[in-house]
């Protein structure tokens, strides 16, 4: 369908990823728990954020995304996003990446559904860019890349019609269909129901350009209104609020797409799978075309060459004991709420063409041996993505 989905997909999904990573890395810094073997310092956090953002907003990467093309398959998208997440010294194991991906995707689905007008998807994207700009405001070179990309996005997307934006939105909704992972933050705020579906309200301001429902007007053949009356609407709507800014700066007005994690500082966000997700393992193998596209895209990702350090292994739980416990509990989270069995292992190198291509661009050895020196930082604590709600 729409040939223009990819740049917005990466800005929004990538943006959500950055919000989550930023919040978790900050949380490590301020955590009282002394059982952690090491903490991520402010500098480490900024470095990770800078590296990922620099990769995501690099000219080559964005140029590739901006070429008119179909949306990637779920698998391909996940692969690229995993590469992005690993653009720095931080490493996530597959299970952590799973949870991160679920969170990102559900947040984006929520944003798409609640988007007042299809065109407001741009505002949502700009909200992400605005926050990303804040993350790298101390690094002029990366900040410049973000600004450049923002300019380009404005240039490409501003001329699209409302119908084209709706097509774009529909393409993305089809892509996200049948995903109902429950996110504790959404459940708490009652924006998501226990069955995983989002709550859509029938109250509030109407989108800009829409009239408040309830009025019927009749016209005579010379164009004059000769009768008007009202009908009960079953909702309670108010007039639209002002339009947000579609420029590089300005009041966006719409809050969807802003960093919802910054508000929930101490709390961790959990996800749980109640219903089986749309199968990742579709019998449909990655078509050769897609692989080529992907290779070009990954080729456009310049990862900073950090020869001094190797990747740090990521643990999912605060202590070794918890890790063992997690490993012990079985279940595969099918229909009921269960703790998903998490293997705190190193990222397994997937033996595919893609991984080979991906490996060529890290400039680092893919195997992550135990780091020396500041080794404690390797015991990372992105545990929030792996704990589940048990109800």
């Amino acid at each position, binding site marked *: 369908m729409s040939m223009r989905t990819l740049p917005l997909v990466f800005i929004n999904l990538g943006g959500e990823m950055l919000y989550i990573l930023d919040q978790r890395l900050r949380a490590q810094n301020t955590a009282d728990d002394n059982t952690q073997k090491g903490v991520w310092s402010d500098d480490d956090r900024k470095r990770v954020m800078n590296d990922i953002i620099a990769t995501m907003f690099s000219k080559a990467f964005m140029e590739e995304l901006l070429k008119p093309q179909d949306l*990637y398959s779920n698998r391909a998208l996940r692969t690229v996003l995993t590469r992005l997440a690993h653009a720095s010294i931080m490493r996530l194991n597959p299970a952590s990446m799973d949870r991160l991906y679920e969170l990102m995707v559900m947040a984006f689905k929520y944003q798409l559904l609640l988007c007042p007008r299809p065109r407001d998807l741009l505002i949502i994207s700009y909200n992400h860019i605005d926050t990303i700009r804040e993350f790298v405001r101390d690094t002029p070179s990366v900040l410049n890349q973000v600004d450049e990309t923002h300019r380009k996005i404005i240039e490409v997307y501003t001329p699209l*019609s409302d119908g084209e934006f709706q097509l774009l939105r529909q393409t993305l909704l089809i892509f996200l269909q049948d995903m109902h992972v429950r996110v504790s933050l959404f459940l708490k705020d009652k924006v998501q129901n226990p069955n995983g579906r989002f709550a859509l309200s*029938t109250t509030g301001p109407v989108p800009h350009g829409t009239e408040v429902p309830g009025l019927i007007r009749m016209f*005579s053949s010379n*164009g004059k209104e000769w009768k008007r009356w009202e009908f*009960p609407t079953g909702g309670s709507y108010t007039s639209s609020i002002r339009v947000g800014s579609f420029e590089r700066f300005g009041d966006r007005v719409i809050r969807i797409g802003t960093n919802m994690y910054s508000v929930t500082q101490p709390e961790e966000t959990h996800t749980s799978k109640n219903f089986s997700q749309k199968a990742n393992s579709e019998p449909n193998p990655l078509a050769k075309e897609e692989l080529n596209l992907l290779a070009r895209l990954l080729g456009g990702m310049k990862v900073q060459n950090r020869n001094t350090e190797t990747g740090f292994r990521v643990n999912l739980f605060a202590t070794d004991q918890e890790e063992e416990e997690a490993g012990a509990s079985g279940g595969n989270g099918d229909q009921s709420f269960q703790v998903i069995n998490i293997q705190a292992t190193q990222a397994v190198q997937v033996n595919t063409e893609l991984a080979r291509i991906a490996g060529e661009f890290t400039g680092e050895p893919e195997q992550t041996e135990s780091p020396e020196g500041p080794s404690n930082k390797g015991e990372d604590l992105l545990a929030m993505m792996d704990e589940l709600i048990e109800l």
Partner: protein
Amino acid sequence: MYHKEKSIQMKSSASALYNNLSVLRIAPRSLTYFTVVHANMVNMVSASWDGLNYSHRQLQSKEANVATSSSLIMQAAWCVLPSRDILVLTSQKGIQMYESDGSIMVYWHALDTPETQTAQAVFARGIAAVREKYICVGISSGSMLVFDVPIKGSNITLSEVLEEHKESITDLASECSGSQECIADMVSADDSGNLCVWKSGEDFQLLNKIPGFQMSCSSVKLWKGTVVAGYGTGQIRLYEAVTGIVHAEVNAHARWIYSLDIAPFSGLLLSAAEDSLVRVWHLTMTPETNSVEIVHMYNECVTDTQICGAKFCDGDGYAFAVTGYDLSEIIRYTQV
């Protein structure tokens, strides 16, 4: 006015597409067929009127073996012709036509895809059976294909290409009152809200062009010479087809309208939108004043659902069915 009946479960959920429900009533067999699009395939359910028997069939988009996202189906609809009913599927790749129960594909028309990838998406969308022998299908470029359909067999031919719209076609509708007196046979709508009114024939004739206001018209119907159009702004407008005179304007919904339907014998109108609401209206023609009146009858809120399809199940509007994005059921309502 209506109450909810038992829903029909589908094999997969409905996609967020305009007019994503088609209903075919087969009186001789006491059956109703429903089709709903899910990404690159179509769910077809046949339901017996006694509510006891349901059977399912799934139709694939042609050339669905390549990456999923490039062979999405945009719409599936039945075309009722005097001698046969044809199920038409429009996708990014082309147009598939089946015998009414979906068992045999009788025709395939591939869309021209450009050599190099352009930013303009390529797909077919908008399906209507016109008079006795035509099936019209819209294209993303704005063109419309007119197919000539024989009484039986697969010798379907492309009769004409209508080039009038400049934006992607969103929906097509043919005169559904059954009256032979109406001059206009078909109306076409596009992404900028422009409406074209046509007379069918060996060469289709453009009778009128009703300009849009840069807002997509996602669903359109034609009844007794009146065009009923639903827009992305949530408005419904009624026009006199051949003159373009506006009869009425309704601030009907708070979000994008996705589906309109008319029950031709009673003049009931059904509208459904992303705002979770289905509304039933009544249209009355007043020949003396040459006007059409629209009166609101009923609301139904499908909680937490962005509705993508709503159709009457019969010509009187005694029952209607609704589909919503991500929902795997067809929700039904009947008059009390």
